C-alpha cells in the first residue's frame, strides 16, 4: 500500500494544477466575454497589427 504515498500526492497535485489554471483563467478575464471569444477565432489577425501588450 505504500504506492498510495506516491499516488495520492500526485493525484492532488494534478488536480491542484487544474484548479490553479482555472482560477488564473478566471482572474485574467477569459470568462468575461464568452460570445465574443467564440467568434473571434473566425478572423485572421492581419500581419501588420501592432503587438498587443
Amino acid at each position, binding site marked *: *500500500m505504500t504506492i*498510495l504515498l506516491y499516488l*495520492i500526492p500526485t*493525484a*492532488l497535485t494534478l*488536480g*491542484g494544477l*487544474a*484548479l490553479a489554471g*482555472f*482560477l488564473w483563467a*478566471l482572474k485574467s478575464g477569459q*470568462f*468575461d*466575454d*464568452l*460570445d*465574443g471569444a*467564440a*467568434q*473571434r477565432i*473566425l*478572423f*485572421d489577425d*492581419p500581419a*501588420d*497589427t*501592432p503587438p*498587443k*501588450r
Partner: protein
Amino acid sequence: MNALIDIAVPVQSACLHCGGPVSAGERYCCVGCRSAHQLVGELGLDQYYRQRQFDPAQRRPRPEVDRQGSDLSAWVTTDESQAGRTPQAHLSMMVDGLHCGACVWLIEQALLRQPGVITARVSLSTRRLSLAWQPAATSAEHLATVVESLGYRLVPVAPDCLRNRDEAELKSLLQAMAVAGFAAGNLMLLSVSVWSGHGDMAPGTRDLFHWISALIAIPAVGYAGRPFFKSALNVLRHGRTNMDVPISLAIVLAPSISLYETFTGGEQAYFDSAATLLFFLLIGRYLDLRARRLAHSSAEQLMALGGEAATLILEDGSLRDIPARDLKAGQCALVHVGARIPADGTVTQGESQLDVSLISGESMPAKAGPGAHVYAGTLNLVAPLTIAIDKVGDATLLADIRRLMEAAESRRNRFIRIADRIARYYAPFVHATALLTFLGWITLGHLPWTSALLIAIAVLIITCPCALALAVPVVQVVASHRLLKAGILLKSADALERLCQVDSIVLDKTGTLTVGRLELQPGYDPQALAIAARIAANSKHPLARAVARAGGDLVPAAPVTEIPGKGLEWASADGIWRLGSAAFTGQADDHSSDHVLWLLDPGGKAAAFHLADPIRPDAAAIVAELAKLGSIEICSGDRPAPVAHLAQRVGISTWHALQMPADKVRRLEELRAAGKHVLMIGDGLNDAPALRAAHVSMAPTSAADISQNAADLLFQGDALRPVTLAIAIAKTTERLMRQNLALAIVYNVAAIPLAIGGAVTPLVAAISMSTSSILVVLNSLRLNAKRRRQNPSQEGA
C-alpha cells in the same frame, strides 16, 4: 457556422457599407457610407464585408455625417505617469449597433491601426469597448470619431457606474465554486475507497485517508463557505434566521467533528459531505445571482449616465460640449436638430418642433418658439434652438418622474419569493430537529456527546438539502432562456413568480396596444409617394418620417427647406414642391384627422397621404385571452375620443383618458387596495412610475429607456403574443418550482428518521444528496421539453 456565410449583396440593391437601400446605379446610400467604405479599404480590413452577418434587431451601421464630436474628457481616466513608463489613458464606452463578431473585429482593428492606441477590446456580451492609449499620441475624441465614422454609435460609460460590484461578486462565487468542486471531487475519491474497503481496510490506512481529507476539506470549506458565513452572520446580528444559518452550521460542524473523530481514530468522517453540500449550494447561488443580474440591463446603464452631452454657449458666443449633468441654471445651451433637450428651460432663440412623446406619450410633436417652456428629455426635430436653462439635474421634470418612480417602488409590497417563504418555516424546523436529536441521544440514548453530535450533524446535512437550493434557480435559468428565445427578456428574478398571480391588467394605449409609430394608410398615389418620400427624408418630423419609411429609404431630395409647424419645400428643377399641412399646401382642412400630409406639385395638383398608428395585429385576440385572467382596462394620457375608439376596437370596456403619470399610479394603487395583482403594460416615459407601482410590469423593447428600466419584462416585435406566452411560461415555471421544492423536501423529510435514528452514514448522506439534486435538475429541464412539444410553432419567434 453562420458567420461564414457570405452575405454580400448585388451592388444595385444595397449600399456597399451599410446594406441599406440605394437608388438605381448608386453604390452607396449616403456620403457617410462612402467614406466609411473607403476607410475600411484603406485600413485593409475588407474581410469585414465578407464575414459580417446582419442582426435584424440592430440598427444599420450607417454613419451620421453631421455628427458633432462631443468632448469626452470627463470620462477619461489617466494613469499617473511613472518613471520609465509612458502614461496611459483609459476609456470605457457602450457600443450601439454591434451585429456580430465581424463588427467587433472591425472596431478593434481600426482602432489598433491608429497611432498611440495600446489596447482596444470590444466585448460582445456586454457591448462595451475598453480603450487604452498614449495621451501624447492621440485623443479620445479622435478615436471615438474613427468608430463613429464606421457607423457605430458610442456612449461613454463612467468608470464608477459599471456593473463592477455584481461582476466581482459573480467572479468570487465562481472561484469559490471551483475550489469547492476541486475539494468535493478529491474527497469523494478518498471517501469511496474508505467505503468500499470498509472492513478490509487497515485502520492505519483509513486514518491516513481521513487525515488527507481533513487537509483538503478544512481550507476548502473555510474559503468556499465565506458567502454563506457572511449571510448567516448578517441575519443573526439582526436577530433573525435564514437557510444560511443551518447551512453554515452544517459545513462548519461537520469538518470540525470529523477532525475530532480523525484525532481519536474514529470510523466515520463527513469531510466529503461538507464539501459536496457546499459545491451544490454554490451552483444554486451562482445561477441565482446570474438571473438577478439581468435586471441591470443596458438601459439602466444608459440612464445612469445622466443624459447626453450638451452644447454650452459661452459668453463670447463660442460653443463648448460638456456632459449634461455639468450644466447650471442661468446658462445658455444650443440644442442641435435631433438632440435631446439637456435640461428644463425657456427658448430664447429659434423656432422648432419637439417630440414630447417621452414626457406625455403624445405622438404629435409640439411647437416651440421663443418664450416656450421646454423639458429635459424631449427631442428637437426641426431647427436648432437656443435655450436659457432654469432647472437642472434633480429639479427637472425628468427627475420628478424618476422620483415618482422611486416613491411607487417603495410603496410596492415587498414580494417574498417562494423559496424564501419556505426557508422561513424550514430553517427553524431544521435547527429544532438537529438540537432535539442531539439532546435525545444524550439523555435517552445515553451516548457520549461526540457520537450524539455526529448524528445531529447527519441530520443537519440531510435536512439542508442542496436540492432545495437548486430547486428555484435552475428552473429560473431554464425559464429565462426559453423566454429569451421567444423574444422576451426577463429583468427581475422574481418577476415570473409575480406574473402567475396576475388577476388584473392595465394597458397603455400608444405604443402598447398600438405599434407606436405612424404608418401610411392605403389609398395614396404611388407616384406622388416616390417624390414625397424623397422630400420627407430631409425631416425628422414623425409624419415625414413615416412617409419616408413608406417610400423605402430613397435618396433625399435637395435643396429642401423646412418651415417649422408647416411643412417642407423643395426647389426642384421644374419648380417648387411642397409637402405639409393642409394650410401650407392650400387645401381645405376638413379636420377629420391630425395625421394627413399633402403634396403639392409645381403645377398646383395635390395628393393626400393619410397616416395612422396601427393597432398591434393580434391586439384584439390577446386582449380576449387576457380578459380571462381578470379585469382589463386602458389608462392613457391621450384624449378621450381616440382612447374610446381604440378600446372599442380591441374589445375593452373600461378606459381612462387624459391620465398624467401620477394618475396612473393612483389608479394602480386603487386596484391594489382592492386586493388585485396588477400587470401593467406600457412603454412611454409617462408610464414608468406606473410600471414600477404595478405588481408586475411588461414593456415593449421600443419603449423609452426609463420605462425599459422600470419594467420587469421586455418583449420584442409588433405582436402582443409575448404577453400571454410569458404568462403561460410563468405558470409552468411556478408549477415546476413547486414540484421541485416538494420533491426536495419529501426526499429529505423521508431521510430524517434515518438520520435521527443514527443510520445515516457518510455514504448514505452522499448518495441522498446527489440523487435529490439530480432529480431536481432533471425535473427543471422538463420546462424545455414540454414547451417544445406543445407549441412547436412558437419556437424561435
